[in-house]
């Protein structure tokens, strides 16, 4: 297996180099997607399947889709500048590489981190899987803030997305639509499964949300912006972006009021509350990620914008 790991590491380095050094933007994006898959593989090798899942879904899948969508909207460009070799650059970074290697060699290999501590408190956590316990109970505040980060990333994108008109070429036939139709229930199922399994084994809200988002992206590509057609109310959409975060935090505040501290749960109800939070968080993540891809803008903003301009 050492050979495999070594090859994987080399491959990751090679792909990273190719992604950054390529002159063709499209090639860079494709290589980047491949790089994400290889990194996911590396996570698997490090026996962190949840990280692998997240990397594959978000780092490679959704980020790749976002990059491709952006690429389709900008002028084709190739970078023709000749890059001069810089001695100072080479010197500094080879020095850094050596330094990093030397320093990493000093890190004790048997580091258990907080694992003992976590295991000791699992019985009170309401869930059996250590990662989920850390994410949704011991360090719930981090996760809540991460949800906020995701929401604010979307708000930020929304603020910048001034004239978003996706250019997708129409396709003949209904192969894609049919495919999407068949796939959607499966995606829902997988998402729900990942979410449910998170309580005891690797999985959880982020992975489930990412998978759901991927399904939504495929669906939106196939049907060209279903949400514009008004199938879902704007309000539902917008609530879904922040719902996960606010439910999480509100439950945290209830914890403060009940005396278990901010972002804490009464141990008896912990399991149920965590499940509730995870469901809402999954939906939030899914809709936020999907919205980022499809550049959803609600009609109200568009209307007021055109008012201002006129």
């Amino acid at each position, binding site marked *: 297996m050492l050979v495999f790991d070594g090859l994987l590491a080399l491959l990751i380095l090679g792909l990273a180099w190719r992604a950054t050094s390529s002159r063709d933007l499209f090639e860079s994006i494709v290589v980047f997607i491949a790089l994400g898959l290889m990194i996911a593989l590396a996570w698997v090798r490090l026996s962190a399947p949840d990280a692998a899942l997240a990397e594959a879904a978000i780092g490679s899948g959704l980020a790749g889709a976002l990059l491709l969508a952006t690429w389709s909207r900008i002028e084709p460009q190739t970078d023709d500048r000749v890059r001069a070799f810089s001695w100072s*650059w080479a010197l*500094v*970074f080879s*020095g*850094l590489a050596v*330094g990093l290697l030397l*320093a990493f060699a000093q890190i004790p290999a048997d580091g258990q981190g907080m694992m003992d501590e976590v295991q000791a408190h699992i019985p009170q956590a309401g869930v059996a899987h250590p990662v989920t316990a850390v994410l949704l109970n011991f360090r719930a505040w981090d996760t809540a803030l991460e949800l906020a980060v995701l929401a604010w990333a979307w708000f930020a994108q929304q603020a910048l997305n001034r004239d978003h008109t996706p250019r997708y070429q129409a396709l003949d036939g209904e192969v894609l639509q049919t495919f999407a139709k068949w796939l959607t229930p499966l995606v829902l199922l997988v998402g729900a499964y990942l979410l449910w399994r998170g309580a005891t084994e690797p999985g959880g809200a982020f992975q489930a949300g990412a998978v759901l988002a991927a399904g939504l992206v495929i669906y939106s590509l196939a049907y060209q912006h279903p949400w514009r057609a008004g199938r879902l109310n704007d309000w539902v959409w917008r609530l879904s972006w922040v719902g996960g975060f606010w439910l999480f935090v509100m439950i945290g505040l209830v914890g403060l009021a009940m005396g278990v501290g901010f972002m804490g749960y009464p141990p008896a109800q912990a399991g149920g509350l965590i499940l509730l939070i995870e469901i809402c968080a999954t939906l939030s993540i899914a809709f936020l990620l999907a919205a980022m891809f499809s550049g959803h803008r609600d009609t109200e903003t568009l209307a007021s914008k055109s008012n201002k301009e006129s």
Partner: protein
Amino acid sequence: MMDFSGMLAMIWLWPLLFALGLAWPRLRPYGIKLLPWALLPAGLLWFGFGWQLLADSSVTLKLEWPNILVGTRLNLDRLGFVWLSLSLIVWGVAALHSRWVQDVYAWRYALFFLLSLAGSLGLVVAADAVSFYLTFSLMSLAAWGLVIHERHASAQRAARWYILLAILGELWLFVGIVARAAELGTTDLSIWAQTSSAGWGLALIWLGLAVKIGVPILHIWLPLAHPAAPVPASAVLSGVMIKAGIIGWWLLLPSQAMANNEWLWLMPWLGVATMLFGGVLGLMQTDPKALLAYSSISQMGWLIWGIGWVWQSAQPEWMMLWVAAFAFHHALIKAGLFLAVGWVKFSATQARWMPWVWGMVILLALLLAGLPFSSGALLKAEMKQVSADALYQLPDSLLLAGSVITGLLMIQFVRRLARLEVQPKTLEKPALISWFSLVGLALIWPYAFMTPSWDNVLSDTQPLLIAVVFATAWRIRVNRQVHLAPGDGVVWLEAAGVKISQLKKHQAWWLKQQQYLVYWRLKSQQKLRRFSKRIYQAERFFLNWSNYVTWLGALLLLVGLSQVF
């Protein structure tokens, strides 16, 4: 007994409030008229605390605001009270005389007057270094507005030199204060008074304040600024502000621990040098105000000499009162004399008062020159007596020379004043009364503290007599005015430049130099512009991404490897 400690802040906050009020345009026309009222809290404090001081002479008024600035302390003790008295009287009389300033920009005069007043009163009560520095700067910098007020060429020249030296002094003082504060770890002046610190910090403080006092070479702003300023402003410049340097030396330097200072011998000698220097140069003046300015330098010599032996004595605090008394004496008389120039110059409408005015002028001149049984003579005699046991003694003849030269200056002053061109201006009676009262006070105040005796009458009369004889002899035998334009050093410098430029054989060369100068100026402007542009573009180096990341990596290496060293 009433607690007056709050007034320690009011005395300078109140004029600041007035100054702030002048920001409102509708108040501006009343600016000058309001000036005397700016002294109200100071007057209340003076009366209130004066009674307490009469009851118990060691009482000290204190106010502490530990959270304001780096810990603000204000206090008023006997010494401060003397200084407050002289400030109050001179500023008050000057405020009443300020109606001589009648131009459109009178409100600006009022503004700078108020700011300067606030600083001047504030530094008297300051008991921490930062408040002293701030009030001192406020006073110095705001006085620039008084000097430049009349805006004619000489005022502008004077103001330029004034601000140049004032800022230089500020800088020295500031660095010195920071150095001393850093070393002592406190800005509390009561600790500063007892603890010495690194010599160069002390030297910088000394130098910074020496500018204000007008120590020779650093004095050049003084004979330019005093004649250029409006008359009441000259009175405060010479009566009060110049003495801020003396109290600054006393407060900021380790006055209680000065006895062993190896440079101390310099002070008495510097004092005498200043006395003679100011006197001799003053005799060469024709403008009575310039003459008075040099006389002030000369009188500062007495204070420098005085503080020189105060630092040697075992009880500096007690001795300092003598110096303070001398400062008080000089403040009243010098302010009175400057205002006298005004009364003579703007005299036309008070014709029937003029004999009285002249009488007062001569009285003031005699007081300063050391008329027996008057404050000048009494103080000088007492100071000489008290200083008899000081370590660094001066020959008596030198001090005598100092006194003689003061006498000569006063004779010259009265003669020059009589030739002054008259420009009529009206002024109400209150000002005249205040001036007469000032002169009266200058005449009688010493008798409240000292009893004149007949023992010294001979030695007291000596300098005055010599001066009269010398002046008469000069009048009969030589009868010539040796003229020197005010500002000696500056004048020499400027004159030398002009002279060189006018030398015939050098004229062509000089012309070429001038042309070259113009060319050079253009060229350097061009160069500067090109340099600016290049600097502006140099930022591209940091903007370059590759460089940015390289810097980042280099810094990482630097911090990461720092444990190797």
